[in-house]
């Protein structure tokens, strides 16, 4: 198990280093001067030059890369060009919104998808299966921002049960914070749940066709027991894979939902930073997201090993 972990971690580290080079290089070739952008069309050339100097943009490329990496290694992500506050503070402010949102959405989606998948698989080919999978098909097809707008109009404009968007901050209390995240989480979770339930169902059906299931059934084990104890556990590998991918998506890919609900999350921070060419913020957030995706993948790999003991030895 230790060798397995060591191998996974070293692969992750190499991925991180490669990612840092790619991220830095891509942002470097992006046209646009952050200083000019901040000072606008009427700025004099000398004012722009002074600002570039203050931002450290007059330094050569390699020097800037080295100082950026050096900073990252000591936990210093640098200072935002536009906000002029430490990048790590900006990320922390946004992560307290994005992380709970992703976790709530993931919990919702799992809580819906696994039972639905089991239900449909157990009734394969029957009306109940057709109806739930039909609904899931619609769930996969519906764009989440459109679904979000429907939620806003029903629950915020018409029923006035929740705010139409925005985030009051955790200092306003735990419940107001969760209340603000509820609708965005539903909007994120349902399409994900639709995908996950279809994956769960098909993985289960595959397992249910295996010989050992027939054996278990033949020796008189109750249906329910077979489904939960034998089938579900063996169907978990593809489900875990999808869950890992979905969590990574929920962390980084929620920009559209964040815009619709005007939530101050990581997605919007990156988007804003890109349009303002606040390169150091983009670099910092992207590196953090890369790291968290790598971490999620390692956790998923460990889960594989826990679910399927055979994978532990070949690692």
């Amino acid at each position, binding site marked *: 198990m230790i060798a397995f972990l060591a191998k996974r971690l070293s692969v992750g580290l190499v991925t991180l280093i490669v990612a840092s080079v790619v991220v830095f290089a891509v942002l470097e070739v992006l*046209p646009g001067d952050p200083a000019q952008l901040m000072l*606008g069309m*009427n700025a*004099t050339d*000398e004012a722009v030059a*002074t600002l570039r100097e203050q931002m450290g943009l007059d330094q050569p490329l390699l020097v800037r890369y080295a100082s950026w990496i050096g900073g990252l290694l000591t936990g210093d992500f640098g200072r935002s060009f536009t906000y*002029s506050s430490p990048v790590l503070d900006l990320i922390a402010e946004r992560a307290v919104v994005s992380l709970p949102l992703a976790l709530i959405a993931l919990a919702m989606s799992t809580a819906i998808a696994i039972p639905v998948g089991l239900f449909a698989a157990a009734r394969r080919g029957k009306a109940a299966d057709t109806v739930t999978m039909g609904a899931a098909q619609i769930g996969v097809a519906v764009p989440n921002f459109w679904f979000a707008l429907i939620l806003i109009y029903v629950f915020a404009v018409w029923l006035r049960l929740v705010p139409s968007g925005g985030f009051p901050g955790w200092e306003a209390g735990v419940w107001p914070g969760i209340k603000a995240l509820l609708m965005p989480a539903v909007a994120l979770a349902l399409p994900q749940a639709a995908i996950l339930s279809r994956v769960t169902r098909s993985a289960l059906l595959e397992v249910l066709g295996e010989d050992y299931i027939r054996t278990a059934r033949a020796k008189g084990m109750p249906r329910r027991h077979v489904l939960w104890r034998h089938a579900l556990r063996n169907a978990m590998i593809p489900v875990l894979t999808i869950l890992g991918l979905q969590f990574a998506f929920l962390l980084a890919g929620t920009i559209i939902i964040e815009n619709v609900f005007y939530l101050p*999350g990581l997605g919007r921070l990156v988007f804003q930073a890109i349009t303002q060419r*606040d390169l150091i913020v983009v670099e910092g957030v992207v590196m953090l997201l890369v790291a968290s995706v790598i971490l999620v993948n390692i956790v998923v790999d460990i889960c594989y090993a826990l679910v399927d003991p055979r994978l532990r030895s070949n690692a």
Partner: protein
Amino acid sequence: MTAWKSILAATALALASSTAAFAARTDVVVGVVLEPPHLDPTAGAAAAIDEVVYANVFEGLTSIGPAGEVEPALAASWEISDDGKVYTFKLHEGVKFHDGSDLTAEDVKFSLDRARAEDSTNAQKGLFAQIDSVEAVDPTTVKVTLKQPQGSFLYNLGWGDAVIVAPESAEGNKEKPIGTGPFKFDNWAKGSSITIVKNPDYWGEAVALDKAEFRIIPDAAAAVPALLSGDVHAFPNMPAGDALPQIQSDSRFEVVIGATEGETVLATNNKKAPFDNLKVRQAIAHALDRDAIMAAGSSGLGTPIGSHFSPANEAYVDLTGTYPLDLDKAKALLKEAGYPDGFKATLKLPPPAYARDGGQVIASQLREIGIELEIIPVEWAQWLEQAFKGKDYDLTIVSHTEPNDIGIYARKDYYFNYDNPDFDKVIAELDVASDQAKRNELFKQAQEILAKDAVNGFLFQLPKVGVWDAKLEGMWENAPIQATDLTGVKWAD
């Protein structure tokens, strides 16, 4: 019976007290589309900065009023020497910064010197170029000496970039702005909202509001439900889009279409062939149908313009008829210019709807006379680097939102690449003229020269779509300067 009476009385009381509570409302939530990068108006060009802090948190010696007029602000009065070169400002007494320190003439000297210093990062450094020296005569008197008379000097001092800051707090203004205004900065939840509260020690007339929150709502689709649900009370400039008629028909809201200082133009590279040919530019002007462009680019709102000047200004001349819509004439001009079959060119479009949607219509209009435009969408950062700085463009669409900025056409090396000594002469005269009648006459001449030269395709003045709760009073109709001045805003009883 008595039971009924007491219930009635209790209900009446409850109703009365609830209306009383409502009448006493002193907070407002204002929706804004863009989040300011920081809150120091003297260190950035972003309109979003001024839209939060100008007139509310920071004040200058003068200020720009709702009709674009220059009003006294921190300077109670001023005297101008006969040669127009020396301005002596008398400051209000008892003005305090939000950190409790007194405003003195030294702070004014510091602010103006900082803005024009060699290492200044003021986005409008040019505003201060004519200042020769600033002298603090006594604690409430400041003497500014100019290198030469400048007609627009008092107006320039009203810009957000010219607000007065204190030496001890200037560096921290980006995060925690300390000004002299009627509101104090309270809190900035990044990505979410900025809150300002009433300044109890304000030197002038106290504001009616106790608290104002600017909520950042970047998505047009989110702005409409935020208004309908009552979460936001006012959008000084609402991205309402197709939902505007629905809001207009709702009696809970007031919709006020005002004017901005944004001249929206089809900017043309005047030194690049074939646009260096006057006939080609005239042909383009004859082919543009402003109403159709406005219908696509700004929901049909706005005012058509025929030169680079705001219709709200008293010196405005309507020149939209200089080159009326006439496709035959346009084709004939192209033929005379040597392009009987038209030509191919590019059209770079920055993100706003006026450019992206208006640009599609312009491309189809110019196709009518044989000019094939390849549309290239660009981000602002790209636009600034390529079109604005690099002058690597044929045509592009931009709204020039700085107030009274006709002088940009006289700038050497500006991205229009326009060069006309006659125009430069008018602007040079304008720079030193301080008599309003003479200034207006010169403004007229300048507008006419640009219209005749068809420097750019002059399209329309960008509208300001103000939407707010019908009970909210005092919001500005027009935007003569980029600001959300809340000093006169209150809830009706």
